[in-house]
């Protein structure tokens, strides 16, 4: 059952690659039916209580590759698949202007397969391979329209990510030399029996460099504004919404909490880097004149909130982290999709040249307002509840500096989102844009779907819903070493 998440997108990608050049309908059909089927499958797996494992090839436990579906993995799967479905439906009318459309959908499905596989695998070298595959698909998708800025940003993105992943490979080599196994549960068990503080400290720093570069934490964030603003809009929505969280934050959580064990140094690193990201992303976003670059800097800031919240170490902090992750994934993808709709209709990305589009594009304006209010933390949208719980958890853990920084930058976030809304949608309609129409119906469908998710995600705070979706993930992280026992006994 767990392998279906990896096999089906890869199979769809290869079929599109073979026959897509001759028949356009097959590539469009596979492009949206595969994410739809997988989101239904992921939602059906949500409430399982025990840890699902699967051995690839039938090989026994420490020798072969294990696929592990515990609370943390099964939490990420619906998030990834639903947002990929929305972005795939959005991109069907969006890429009408470009040539060789079948390559776009093939790379899209490969990216979805790699994100699913990163979340599900239990073997550390397999994790590295799937991160590289997902990265390769995204390097090619970022420079899909061959414009000068897209090529330059894709080159920078590719070189920086490759260097970061080489540091991760160095860390994997050191871990393999010490424990002589590649299974993550087995590594955790052996590190618990014979601890070695120098090795684990050095490997922690290497992993923070590599995976922090993948998840855009502040000293390693410089590829993100260029890459996310030059990509085609549905790809930006995917990159900023789920790729950072699935390839970056998930791997950090899995390795730091379940394999190494959470101690004081890791907590301090998380809190310090999280606060740095919040401040840097928030302040640099005010000066931007380009719509998508502002959204990209806002992503850095919100990822800082998530990392800070996980670094607190308390169960309330972990709950707040997961809640903010889901809210940000839905809202940021929605914001990138609306900016893509504006770009598709008007062809302009700078906020100074737009204005007053609210009369001509009502659906886009309404959903963009929903997304902005959700990220800034205005009730009753989902983002308000998650930011409230982050600040409560920070005060409970006696991080008063962190809580005050979170509140202050939240006001700054509201400021630049209001600037985005005023310059793009409100104000006077310039005479250049007098005869533009609303976006095509497929784009409106995905935007409305994500807007409903943004409004409804506040319901995750209710105890009944929370126990099904988020509490298993919190239990996996809070349990720490019990991940090893749960995987190895089965």
């Amino acid at each position, binding site marked *: 059952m767990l392998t279906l998440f990896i096999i089906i997108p890869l199979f769809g990608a290869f079929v599109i690659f073979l026959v897509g050049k001759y028949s356009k309908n097959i590539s469009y059909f596979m492009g949206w039916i595969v994410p739809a089927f997988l989101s239904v499958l992921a939602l059906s797996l949500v409430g399982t209580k025990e840890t699902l494992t699967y051995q690839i090839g039938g090989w026994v436990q420490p020798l072969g590759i294990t696929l592990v579906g515990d609370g943390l993995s099964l939490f990420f799967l619906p998030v990834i698949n639903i947002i990929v479905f929305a972005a795939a439906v959005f991109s069907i009318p969006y890429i009408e202007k470009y040539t060789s459309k079948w390559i776009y959908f093939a790379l899209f499905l490969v990216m979805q397969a790699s994100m699913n596989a990163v979340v599900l695998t239990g073997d550390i*070298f397999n994790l590295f*391979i799937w991160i*590289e595959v997902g990265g*390769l698909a995204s*390097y*090619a998708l970022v*420079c899909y329209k*061959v*414009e*000068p*800025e897209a*090529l*330059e*940003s*894709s*080159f920078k993105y*590719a*070189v920086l990510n*490759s*260097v970061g992943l*080489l540091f991760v*490979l*160095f860390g994997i*080599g050191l871990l*393999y*030399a010490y424990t002589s196994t*590649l299974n993550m549960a087995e590594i955790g068990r052996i590190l618990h029996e014979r601890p070695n503080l120098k090795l684990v400290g050095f490997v922690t720093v290497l992993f923070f460099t590599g995976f922090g570069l993948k998840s855009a934490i502040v000293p390693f964030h410089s590829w993100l*504004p*260029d890459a996310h*603003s*030059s990509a085609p809009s549905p790809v930006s929505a995917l990159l900023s919404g789920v790729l950072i969280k699935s390839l970056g934050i998930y791997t950090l959580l899995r390795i730091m909490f379940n394999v190494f064990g959470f101690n004081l140094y890791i907590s301090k690193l998380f809190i310090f880097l999280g606060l740095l990201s919040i401040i840097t992303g928030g302040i640099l976003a005010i*000066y*931007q004149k380009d719509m998508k*670059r502002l959204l990209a800097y806002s992503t850095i800031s919100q990822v800082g909130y998530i990392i800070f919240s996980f670094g607190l170490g308390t169960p309330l902090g972990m709950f707040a982290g997961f809640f903010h992750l889901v809210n940000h994934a839905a809202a940021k993808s929605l914001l990138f999709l609306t900016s893509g709709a504006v770009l598709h209709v008007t062809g302009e990305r700078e906020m100074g040249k737009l204005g007053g589009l609210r009369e001509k594009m009502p659906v886009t304006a309404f959903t963009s307002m929903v997304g902005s209010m959700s990220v800034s933390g205005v009730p009753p949208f989902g983002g308000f509840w998650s930011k409230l719980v982050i600040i409560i958890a920070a005060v409970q853990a006696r991080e008063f500096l962190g809580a005050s920084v979170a509140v202050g930058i939240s006001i700054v976030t509201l400021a630049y989102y209001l600037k985005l809304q005023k310059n793009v949608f409100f104000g006077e309609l310039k005479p250049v844009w007098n005869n533009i129409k609303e976006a095509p119906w497929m784009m409106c469908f995905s935007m409305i779907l994500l807007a409903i998710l943004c409004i409804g995600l506040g319901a995750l705070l209710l105890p009944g819903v929370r126990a099904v979706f988020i509490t298993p993930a919190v239990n996996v992280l809070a349990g720490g070493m019990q991940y090893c026992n749960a995987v190895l006994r089965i």
Partner: protein
Amino acid sequence: MVEYFLCMVLFCLGLYAILIKRNLIKIIIGLAIMEYAMNLFFILLGYKKGATVPIFSSLTEPHPEVMVDPVAQAMVVANVVIGLAVTFILVIIAILIYEKYGTFDIRDVNKLKG
């Protein structure tokens, strides 16, 4: 012990090439040198003194205890494949950049600022 030290020197030379050099092609070559250093590191991890090739020549000869580690060699093959694919994409992007900007110098390839 000297081999590990020289392997790290190779890694740092590759990092120096990526950071300091201004030509796009030299940056790609620096990335390739770093990949070679990591592959060398993995092969050095699996080595045992006086051991032989991990291939059975009959059902009992040689004993598995006098073989070098084959898992490290499998990891090297996978890493080589990935390095090949990344180098392909980087070279193709470099050619397209030359076509659009007219130069390989990274000081002139900077349209995105701020």
